[in-house]
Structure formats: C-alpha cells, structure tokens
C-alpha cells in the first residue's frame, strides 16, 4: 500500500494521491508514515528527472502535489518532522541577479536527495551568504546566477567568504545561465555544475556520501 502511494505520487496522479491521503488520515494511520511515503515518491521523481524521463514541468507539479499532501497531513501530526540529512547547503542567487528558476530546481533536487538546504533567494548580498554560513556551519555553498552581472557578484561573494575566514572550511559550486568553467575560474569557486544533477553529485562527493 505505501509503495502504491509513493508510485502514485511519482506518477503525478493528483486525484488518486489526494484521495488516498484523505483515506489514510481517516483510517487513523500514523501521519508520519504518509510523509515518509511522500518523500519516497519524491525520491523517484528526482531519479526520473536525473534519468531524463522527467523535466521541469514534472518537478513543478510534483512539488505542488507534495505541498497539498503536506497541508492535509499537517493538522494530524503530533511531533515535529525530523529527517536525517546528508549535509547542509547554503544556496542563493548572487547580488544583482533576480532569477530563480534554476535556483529552485537545484534546491528541489538537493532536498529530495537528502540535503538540508538553506535557500536565501535572489539578489543575495555577499554578507548574507557569510552570515548564513556562519550560522549553519554549512560545508557547501551554491551560487546561482543567470546573467553576466553575476560573474563579478560571484567573485565578490567568494572573496567575502574568504575574508570572513570561512573559505578553507567550505566548498563552493556555481551554476546557471551564462555560467561555465571560465566563470568558475574567474570567481575562484571550486566547481561549476551544468545542471541540478551535477549539483547533487558534487554535494554528495563533498560530504563523502555515496
């Protein structure tokens, strides 16, 4: 039964997923179990995305489904949800750039792959990255950018992290629109990832996960 739920979610069957969620809540089942199954289903979505079977529309739609399931389940939860995480990542689109499509896909893929993601949003000042890394002790920072103004903003953000004495303890990846390995060199980051799967692979490598 729980396998069915995860599969229905992974197959994006909106009506069935919501119907089944309601039935399971009504039957008095532990709501945590429903969330676990949802997480499993989202994991499958992530795999299908990585395999090139799913694309952005499926990610968006599955995210929306998850949100609806969570809304239904939430009032019935007795304890706060805690999940084990592979590691922590601070993520954001650098100053002067307000694009977030790529940022949110990376956030999504890191999340379904078990990372705790602190997404700072767009047009993020370098000081904010510094503060968040200090606060979370995250070993990984992801810098997103779409347009050319991001080249300098990334460079300046890396410099700020260095000045704050954090650079040696963190790995920095960059990605998005016009970013590539040239920009990685220019900004003095550790890696460039061409898509969300690359971000997951890098993050796993850096935290020593399989």
């Amino acid at each position, binding site marked *: 039964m729980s396998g069915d739920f995860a599969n229905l979610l992974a197959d*994006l069957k*909106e009506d069935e997923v919501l119907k089944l969620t309601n039935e399971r809540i009504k039957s008095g089942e532990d709501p945590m179990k429903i969330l676990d199954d949802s997480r499993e289903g989202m994991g499958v979505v992530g795999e299908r995305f990585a395999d090139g079977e*799913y*694309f*952005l*529309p499926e990610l*968006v*739609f599955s995210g*929306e489904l998850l949100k609806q399931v969570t809304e239904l389940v939430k009032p019935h939860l007795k304890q706060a949800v805690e999940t084990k995480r592979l590691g922590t990542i601070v993520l954001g689109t650098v*100053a*002067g*750039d*307000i*694009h*977030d*499509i790529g940022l949110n896909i990376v956030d999504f893929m890191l999340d379904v792959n078990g990372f705790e993601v602190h997404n700072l949003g767009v*047009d993020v000042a370098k000081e904010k990255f510094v503060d968040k890394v200090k606060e979370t002790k995250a070993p990984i920072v992801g810098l997103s950018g779409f*347009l*050319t*103004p991001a*080249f300098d903003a990334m460079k300046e953000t890396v410099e700020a992290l260095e000045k704050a004495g954090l650079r040696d303890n963190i790995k920095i990846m960059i990605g998005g*629109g*016009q*970013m*590539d390995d*040239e*920009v990685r*060199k*220019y900004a003095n980051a550790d890696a460039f990832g061409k*898509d969300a799967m690359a971000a997951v692979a890098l993050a796993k490598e850096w935290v020593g996960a399989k």
Partner: protein
Amino acid sequence: MQNEMAKEWVELNPDEKREERFKRWLSTPPGVKFSSSEAEKSYKERVTRFTRAFQLKEPDRVPCILPAGNFAAYYAGSDLRTVMYDYDELKRTWRKFLNEFGDSDMFFGPGMVPPAKALEAVGYKLYKWPGHGISGDTTSYQCVEGEYMKADEYDALIRDPSDFWLRTYLPRVFGAFEAFPQLPALTTFEEIAIQSFIPFGLPNVQAGFEALLEAGRESLKWAAAVMEVSQEAMALGFPGVMAGLAKAPFDTLGDTLRGTHGIMMDMFQRPDKLQEALEKIALLSINSALSSVGDSGPPLIIMPLHKGADGFMSEKQYETFYWPTFKKVIMSVVNEGIMPILFAEGSYNTRLDIISELPKASVTWWFDQTDMARAKKVLGDKVCLIGNVPTSLLMTGTPKEVKEHCRKLIEVCAPGSGYILGGGANIDKGDPDNLRAMMEAVKEYGVYK
C-alpha cells in the same frame, strides 16, 4: 516597381517577397545621407554580406554580429543606469563607441536601452533595473517573474485579450493603472453612451491616463535620441541588423502572464485551456511582429526564446505545447518575406531535428550554448546559423583566446555559407579588444575563396 512585368506584392510568393525586402534593405535608408561615397559602398557591402549569409549563398567572408548590447555605455565610462535616465549620455556613449571601435559589420543602436523615466511614469513593476529594485551598478535590467494572470483567468484572456490586458493584466504590472479594473469594457460603448463615461471621471483613473501620457512624451524624447545615433551609424556605413521583435506564444504566456510555475502546472491541470490561449496569443504575436517591420529597414525579426530550451521540457512536451504555435508565428512572418532570427537561449541540442522542418533559407537560428557542430550537421544546408562565442570567454578571457575560439567556430560552421559569427549572449562590459578579436577572426579565417 521599375519593371512593368513586376508582380503586385500580394502576388509574390514568400521567397520573392524576401528577395524584394532584402533588395530594399540594400537601398539607401530613408532619412540617411551617407557621409562619403566610401561609407555608402561599405554599407552596401555589409548588407550584402549579411544577406548572402542569410540566403545560404557565399558572401565575400563570414559576417560578424558583435554581441555589444550595452557595451557602449561602459566603454565610454558610463553605466546602464545613467544612460537609461539621461538621453544625452546615451547619445554621447554610443557615439564614442561608434567612432572609436573601428571596423565592424554592423552597429547596435541604443534601441534596447529602455527609457527609465517612462517606466517610472507608469510605475512599471514587471522589470527591475539598476537603481530601481536592484543595485545601481547592475549591468542589466531583469524581468520580475510572477503569476500576473491567475489560473482561473484563461476564459477571460481567450474571450477578449485586449480587454484582459487593459483591465486585468496592466493594472497588475503598471502601478499607475491600479484603478483600471473600474473601467468598463470598451465594447460596452453602444448606442448613445449614458453611463459608460463615468469611470473615466474618477480621479485615480484619470491619474492612470495622465501617467500614460507622460510615458508617451518621455518616450518620444528617447526615440529621437535613439534614431539620431542609429542614423549616424548608417550614414557612416554601418547597417543595423534588427528591426522587429516577437516571442513564441508559450514564452509570452509563461514569462509574463502565468509565470514558469503557473504555466507548468497548467500543462497538467488545464492543458486544453492552455492550448486555446496559446492559439489566441499566436494571433496577437503575429500581428505585432508584422507591424514591427517597416518597408525599408532590415527585413529581420528577432525572437528571443526562453522556456523551450533543453531541460525546460521534454521533446514531447516541446512538440505538444511549444512548437505548434511558435511555428505558426514563424511561418506567418516568413510568408510575408520577413526572416525571423530565432535566438535560442540556453541550449537547443534536443530540438534540432524538430526545428529542421522549416523551409529552406526561411529563418536563421542564433544559438547560445547549442553544440554548433551538430547544429551545422542537422541544419547547415537548410538555414543560416549565428553563434556562439561564450559570454564568459568574451568577458573574462584574452583577445588571443577569443580569436582562437572564433577560428574553431568558423572552421566548423562557415563551409558552404550560412554562418554568421556571433556571441552566445550580449556582453555589457569588458575588454573591447575581445570584440575586436572577433572581427580579426572573420577577416583572417572567414574569407570565402
């Protein structure tokens, strides 16, 4: 027409119309007086160079479009923020670049620098620009994506797009139009108008129209400045290469109406409505595309493409949702003898086979990060290609590296004609010698023998 055998415009087929438009482009642009016979000769050589590449005929050498979007502002020691507000600075900076840069095949006038005061007059919320929502030293203006059209508004859009724009969409993106939902649909004016004028008397509605008038006055000043510099460039022998602008219907709906999130939800939750709206928007796009090209300028329309790129959707979704109405816009433009320049942002590697069905030499594809070798293989004998020196290389590399990259591109793409060297996207600042390196490359490696 000079020839008495010449056919009427309506009798021409699309290829003949295109030939005719290219011919008109070659004649002296209205209002332009060439600065010398040398300049006139250069102008014609340059237009011919582009025209032949577009037509897949061998030009004297590979033409080059310099990706110098707002480059002039920074080259002349100013910045985007300043030239968006100060038209004298706009003219000064573009002139300086025009006069000092040296040889090039074309010139981008300042027509893509928007008049900030006009945007401010109507309280434009769809974009942020330097000093207005983003830091003043930012080198670009950027769209604020949002759900400006709600999921349950498809019927309203489909029923009457103009009314939807005026009373629903514009009030959401123009702060000054906040009161416009109180307006009546203009189609309610029938018979002797009795009550229909009342909303136009409301002070906040009137303020909206005042703001629009102010934006209009401001835009006229801006347009005069843009025109002045663009004509000077032509007088010196440098043609412009862009006339109109159009978008793929999926992008219109996804960029500025429903937003990426919204339109992707619609692909699952209301695909029929989405298709119906795309068909409706296609008609609007065709209309505005055709009216944006004059009789004598370059017969070219640039179409910047966004959400159909690799990764954004599957091939099947592309074929279902993106391509049909996009193709409809393309073909309507092509049938009028206008060549769409299809600028595919990101990469288009998985779309090459689908897009190869367009008629020979009817369009030009401008690629950003697409694999040019494969593009040349799949599309090379059908349509002209532009691309794709990486923006990062142009902004952070050396002239030598740029030139070497161009050499490789030319080797792959130039054989048999149908190739124009260009950037992946525009650069805003950096070493002007990196742009000059592109010109050196076409002259050294791009000559057809």
